[in-house]
């Protein structure tokens, strides 16, 4: 057989209580993320929001989407997607984050010009 992992019958049937728990956890985390947005954490607002979102997504993937009970290949597929998304975002950031290293002409006061791309807009 080609399949290196054989599941039989109906696969894993999760108890209803687990699903309800996950649902409640997701609702609470939604509340937390909204609440956190109204607290001034400076740079960390974004980080907190993203950590909560990643955690929520992980709950959905792990329990609702049954990845917990799937073969390692399924987990590898998910990981591949995230890895290449990281490549897309990370390699683009290499460009955008280092643009400012090169001296640029000073931004103009002219309202019609936003300043050179790459440099942050005038503050």
């Amino acid at each position, binding site marked *: *057989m*080609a*399949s290196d*992992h*054989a*599941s*039989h*019958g*109906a*696969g894993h*049937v*999760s108890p*209803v209580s687990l*699903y*309800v728990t*996950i*649902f409640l956890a*997701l*609702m609470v985390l*939604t509340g937390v*993320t*909204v609440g956190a*947005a*109204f*607290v*001034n*954490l400076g740079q960390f*607002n974004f980080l907190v*929001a*993203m950590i909560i*979102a990643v955690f*929520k*997504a992980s709950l*959905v*993937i792990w*329990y*609702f*989407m*049954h990845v917990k009970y*799937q073969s390692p*290949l*399924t987990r590898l*597929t*998910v990981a*591949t*997607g*995230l890895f*290449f*998304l990281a490549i*897309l*975002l990370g390699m*683009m*950031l290499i460009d*955008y984050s280092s643009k400012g290293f090169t001296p640029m002409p000073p931004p103009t006061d002219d*309202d019609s010009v*936003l300043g050179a791309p790459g440099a*942050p*807009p*005038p*503050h």
Partner: protein
Amino acid sequence: MSNAVAQADHHAHAHHPAQQHHFDTMPQQKEAAVLGMWVFLLTEILFFGGLFAAYMIYRVWYFEAFAEASRRLSLFWGGLNTAVLIGSSLTMAMAVRGAQTNKRTATVNWLILTMILGAVFLGVKVIEYQDKFANYEVPGATYNWMYHDERAAAAGGEHAAPAPGAAHRQLALSPGQLQRTTQIYFSLYFTMTGLHALHMIIGIGLMSVITWMAWQGKFDDQYYTPVEMSGLYWHFVDIVWIFLFPLLYLVERHQ
């Protein structure tokens, strides 16, 4: 012949009616479908990934514009939709569970409930979009950043509620700059939520077929792959929203 080929018979046991001819066993067929669906979701990650990449760059460049424009979205409707969508994920998971445990009526009911919640989400989205159209906040030739505040001011002179805190926020960007750069935010907003909504419409379409099939009694604990596949899809759409909500609605709410 260089490759000796031995024959092996894997057709000893009786076939399930849903088993296709080119698969040897039901587990093989199911695993192929699960893997195929996950590979499809992999492409979806990268599909939305392109939008997230654009969002990331512009949010850093024009943070203030993003923060200002983000406050124009209604936290009430956005939060409500998040709750609705998470709820629909729960009902979807229950529908799959119903199929797994041979409960035909329960499967159909949970699926219908999921579709109703999906429709509620889309209805709320229509309300939100209408508000954007009414306020000239759709990017393009008619876009007018100032209209929202002007209308609020005109509506009730001393009435301070429409733009809470706007007065005390000192903005570095001039109205002209906001007029331009907030359009980038709203372009991304409409593209992201629009594509997300499109995915939901497709999901509801898929589910109506699955519901009909479930009603016909096509599924049992040996074969419920279509229910499970549409479930995976629906949960993925939910995950996209889990990220869209803080990125679009909660850029900077504390000021």
